[in-house]
């Protein structure tokens, strides 16, 4: 993407704003008891997935994490079906079986939002193996947090992908905290130095600036598509919200949140679009469209029915046969 492409930047701005408004609506729905269990919000991190996904092509595959609303929406997953899933509705992407933490939508290139830290790295590595063996020309992308850099999957899959020269892009969204604990307190050395030590193409990037992320992702994907093996991008960003319900929110130093909020990815994205020549009136109009669309999404999801219990029987149908004892209640 060129930094002077006003249309592309206006689109990215609007898509980030949509994710922000969607998550604000999800948060208030959660607080009103319309969303259950736990949701993991990514407000403040929108530029990373918007930038990377802007560089993808139809047929590329993405593995995200339980904090995966950004990636799903950036990939074009139907937002009403997505919100419905969060609300446990029959019309949800996974029929209410998944919830926020486990959504998968292979039709839209979303392999899944993996609930185990590091799981996305493994899924994308395998998907990249398929692309290589089947010679599809597509790539797989793994999104994961800084916390995953200390999981076994990280070392093992990076090594595996490097020795097999797999077409996979690893995107570390370093938001400074693994759940409640500061990254630096539990992470030896720098994260990006780890793929570098394996000879993997690696860049660090300002994760708050969608144009920067988009350009770095384009370079990385160029390397991957040219058959150079995996690439790695560490994007520095920040999570505004608590990790999830039950987070004591007492671990951030004074002033840190304010410093990061002064570099909000959506404000930066808007300025990027304006600098490239987008008109303020057009961006204001996009603001209105986004607000109206999110309201509609929430209303439709809220009005959708909860799943009826006969769905339990259809679950049994696509499960391995012979588990007769488990079917007794049907």
């Amino acid at each position, binding site marked *: 993407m060129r930094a002077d492409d006003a249309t592309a930047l206006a689109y990215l701005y609007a898509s980030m704003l949509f994710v922000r408004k969607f998550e604000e609506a999800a948060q208030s729905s959660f607080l009103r008891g319309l969303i259950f269990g736990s949701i993991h919000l990514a407000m403040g991190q929108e530029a990373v997935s918007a930038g990377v996904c802007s560089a993808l092509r139809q047929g590329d595959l993405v593995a995200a994490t339980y904090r995966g609303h950004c990636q799903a929406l950036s990939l074009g997953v139907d937002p009403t079906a997505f919100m419905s899933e969060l609300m446990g509705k029959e019309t949800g992407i996974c029929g209410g079986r998944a919830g926020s933490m486990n959504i998968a939508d292979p039709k839209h290139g979303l392999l*899944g939002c993996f609930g185990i830290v590091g799981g996305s790295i493994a899924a994308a590595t395998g998907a990249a193996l398929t692309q290589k063996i089947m010679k599809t020309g597509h790539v797989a992308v793994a999104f994961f947090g800084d916390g995953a850099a200390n999981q076994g999957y990280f070392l093992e899959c990076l090594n595996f992908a490097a020795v097999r020269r797999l077409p996979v892009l690893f995107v570390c969204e370093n938001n400074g905290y693994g759940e409640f604990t500061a990254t630096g307190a539990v992470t030896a050395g720098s994260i990006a130095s780890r793929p570098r030590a394996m000879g993997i193409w690696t860049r660090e990037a300002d994760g708050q600036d969608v144009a920067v992320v988009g350009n770095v992702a384009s370079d990385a994907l160029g390397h991957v598509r040219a058959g150079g093996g995996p690439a790695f991008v560490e994007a520095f960003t920040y999570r505004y919200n608590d990790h999830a319900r039950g987070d004591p929110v007492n671990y951030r130093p004074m002033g840190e949140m304010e410093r990061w909020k002064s570099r909000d990815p959506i404000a930066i994205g808007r300025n990027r679009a304006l600098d490239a020549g987008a008109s303020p009136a057009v961006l204001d109009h996009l603001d209105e469209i986004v607000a109206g669309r999110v309201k509609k999404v929430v209303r439709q999801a809220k009005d959708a029915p909860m799943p009826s219990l006969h769905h339990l029987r259809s679950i049994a149908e696509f499960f391995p046969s012979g588990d007769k004892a488990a079917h007794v209640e049907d």
Partner: protein
Amino acid sequence: MSKTDFRSAVRDAISEEMRIDPTVVLFSEDVGAAGGVFQATRGLRELFGDERVFDTPISELALAGAAFGAAISGLRPIIEVMFGDFTPLVMDSLINQAAKYQFLTGGSCGVPLVVRSAVGGGGRFGAIHSQIPAPWLNNVPGIKIVAPSTPSDARALLRSAIRDDNPVVFLEHKRLYNLQGECRDEAVAIGSATVVRPGRDVTIAAVMTDVHKALSAADRLAHDGVSAEVIDLRTLRPLDLDTVVTSAKRTGKLVVVEEGPRTGGWAAELVASVSEQFGDITVWRVTSPDRPLPYSPPLEDATLPSAERIAESVLEKLRVSVNANKSRSGR
């Protein structure tokens, strides 16, 4: 029909499926150039090339995770967990990813993944290279567990496993690799048990090496005038309850032989399920005790189920029931 050994039957099954289906791939530690530590994949890399048959790092998280990712995106990967004892290292991918994916996607996206593993005791490999991981996985809906006892079933069931759209754990008992047998050219469905010796007085159900021990126990029992029916379950999940219940209803007695420790084993599941369906029956288990398997030959041999222990347990139960009948009729 041709005669072959168990190890070649495994290799033939993979080779035949790879020839038919270009999406079948095989990768794991030492399976390519070396042909596997048990030589069950020898020659496959030469036949199908390094793209489809390749060696991986000693990296179970990566190879199981990659197998899952490959399975949901268009390949039918086969991986080998060199010893069943290493299964805990692949359990996150199996349990949290592979076994849930059909559920999450509403059955629209299969997970055609086969995890082969060399398992079982009797080889003097000690406590951490002899376990059978079936009970660790048995509590996970969505995983199938296959455990053949003959070369013929190994070949047929591995072909079925590769064609299955669910994750299948395929157990290969180390003590069976050299077993010779006739290879029938017939398909065997996962989840079907078979009666390998008909009998009247007692039903013995087992898998893998224990099927052969049960058959030799049945020979001994025949000398004592006891007619034992032996069932080779062949699949541990899903269990073929119909075949077991039909037999046990006729004999009135069911003994399940499980090589591993007693508590929480698959045999417990089988006797519970049979009892629920058919209460008027004597059921018991012959298993290893609840402790790790010792290395030293006399200690290992005394720990594992044997033909003698199976036969003795049957005679003991029959004596008990004969005595009970006597005392009942004497009243």
